[in-house]
């Protein structure tokens, strides 16, 4: 569908760094290069992900990471184990999850978890921003992984129209058209996006927390992520509801049905009671 869209084609052409269709030979060559690159990437990811001997040798940590380790050993070690190797039945290994995951889980207050639940819920956060950075640095230095870019505003260059389309393909099935969230199987749920910051949305896409699928940079580019965040922050949250003071939670027909009975019918039944009542 979007192939009809010139502006967007321009964008994707830009992303791929070349206009139009290349010659057959060049395409073969490019494909070969990409295949090699992909294999190397996969191999690299494997070496990073595999809990090998490298992780246990404890390479020297940076000072931020050392501070993070101190925090970790106080607050997280019970479930995630020594050197974040994980504890069977309590908490997963954090080697290789990356700073993005730490950022999401800790800045939304999901970690540290109060108790084991089907799904960690958003809570007031326990750590300060600096402490979160230190924890993130520690986990990052343990085994690498995805990192959220710097800065609080990650949607400055975002295009809401592109973001909207990506949102509807990739996000709305769980978080709903309105961003209000929705139910998943057996008590799990996709949370509302209302309280989420740019960094939290970005880190969630990168790390795929809990049951959310991972949307890595290779699938949704950083530019596209900025578009999606722009759509969520500007259109879904800031834009308001042009249709009235009350948006009925934007739940769609279910709350509209409640409103027609509890506002419309109730008001009119009272009116008819008055009309037919004795003066």
């Amino acid at each position, binding site marked *: *569908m*979007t*192939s009809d869209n010139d502006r*967007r*084609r321009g964008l*994707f052409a830009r992303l*791929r760094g070349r206009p139009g269709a290349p010659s057959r030979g060049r*395409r*073969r060559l490019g*494909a070969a290069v*990409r*295949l090699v*690159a*992909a294999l190397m*990437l*996969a191999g690299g990811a494997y070496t990073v992900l595999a809990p090998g001997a490298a992780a246990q040798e404890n390479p020297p940590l940076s000072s931020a990471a050392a501070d993070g380790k101190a925090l970790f050993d106080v607050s997280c070690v019970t479930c995630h184990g020594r050197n974040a190797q994980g504890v069977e039945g309590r908490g997963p290994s954090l080697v290789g999850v990356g700073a993005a995951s730490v950022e999401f889980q800790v800045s939304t207050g999901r970690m540290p978890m109060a108790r084991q639940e089907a799904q960690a819920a958003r809570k007031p956060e326990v750590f300060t921003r600096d402490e979160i950075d230190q924890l993130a640095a520690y986990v990052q230095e343990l085994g690498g992984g995805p990192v959220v870019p710097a800065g609080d505003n990650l949607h400055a260059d975002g295009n*809401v129209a592109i973001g909207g*389309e*990506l949102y509807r*393909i*990739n996000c709305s*099935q*769980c978080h709903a058209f309105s961003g209000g969230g*929705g139910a*998943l*199987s057996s008590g*799990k749920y*996709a949370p509302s996006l209302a309280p989420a910051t740019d960094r939290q949305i970005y880190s969630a896409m990168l790390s*795929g927390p*809990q*049951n*959310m*699928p*991972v*949307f*890595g940079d*290779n*699938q949704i580019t950083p530019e596209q992520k900025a578009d999606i965040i722009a759509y969520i922050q*500007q*259109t879904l949250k*800031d*834009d*308001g*509801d*042009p*249709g*009235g*003071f009350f948006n009925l939670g934007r739940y769609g027909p279910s709350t509209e049905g409640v409103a027609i009975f509890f506002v419309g019918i109730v008001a009119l039944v009272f009116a008819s009671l*008055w*009309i037919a009542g004795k*003066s």
Partner: protein
Amino acid sequence: MSSQTGQPALPGGEPLDVNDPRLSRFDIVREGARRDDIEIVHYEPQVAAGTKAERRMVRTVAAFFLLTGLASTAFLAVYIWWPWEYEPGRGGDKLYTPLLGVTLGIALLAVGFGILTWGKKLLPKEVSIQDRHEGAVPTEDQRITGETMAYMADELGVKRRPLLGVSLLAGLLPVGAVAAAPLVGGLISDPHKDNQMMTTGFAPRDGQKIRLVREDGRPIRPADISAGGQITVFPGVEHGVSNQYADSPTLLIHLRDADAEASRRNNEREGHGGYMWGNYAAYSKICTHAGCPASLYEQQTNRLLCPCHQSQFLITDNAKPIFGPASRRLPQLPIEVDAEGYFVATSDYTEPVGPDFWERP
């Protein structure tokens, strides 16, 4: 208007002479009502003319009407001068519709309550009794009408001349069919033309396997999807990413190692060995229950939830339904990677995609 509070009805059943100059207008009205079997048994003005109560009521009603004028003027002012064109962010335009609604609502409610107050408080109260005439169904009339109709049938003589009836029926039935034919014939369309219910955009064309592409038409490499990730893919044909191929949207999932292992094992059990490529599996996004895009993928539990009727499918076991109303697993698209490193569909779906129907094999 004369006040008649429960006065006994004028004597006698015979009609009054309405030309009698001594009769008031109310008397004539009452006589008219009586001719329609209505007895006005109670009639009483609610407020006496010229009293304080009447003046107060009149003022209330007038106030309502003036409020209508005021609110209507406000409506027009808002309609004309308030900024109404959409602007991003919380602009003043977001108040346009609410302001229109409030002013219009007040205007209409005020005129409504004005009229109601007028009718309810200023007009005389009455109780009238009207006869229904139901008990006295004129059976004589029933009989006369019945006989007339029977007589009409007799005149036509269909009973005596059965050929007339039969030929009329035989002749008119096709006429009815003629009326229906253009509609039915125009609407009818063979659902099995080009085997459209069994094929999707992934059917190989001219021996060429169809690529899996994203919503913007780019093909997909295995490295594009992280483990625990999923992506909606379309057939890489012209208009593949459009509602023309409403059955083709597919979910390409990169399973984690252990899950992929289980998935492969279950695939083989069902004779779907080789449908996956590496840790990647592709399942139709179109729910087999009612056709919604079943796409709420839970990457830890590997369940796929459909948001319309909550059918749940277990991706690691051939996407078989494990909860909810769906009775059939999601069809799996056999995939592989072509020489250039992009995903292609090895063949079309081997089961029909989308909701079930009677003649599904």
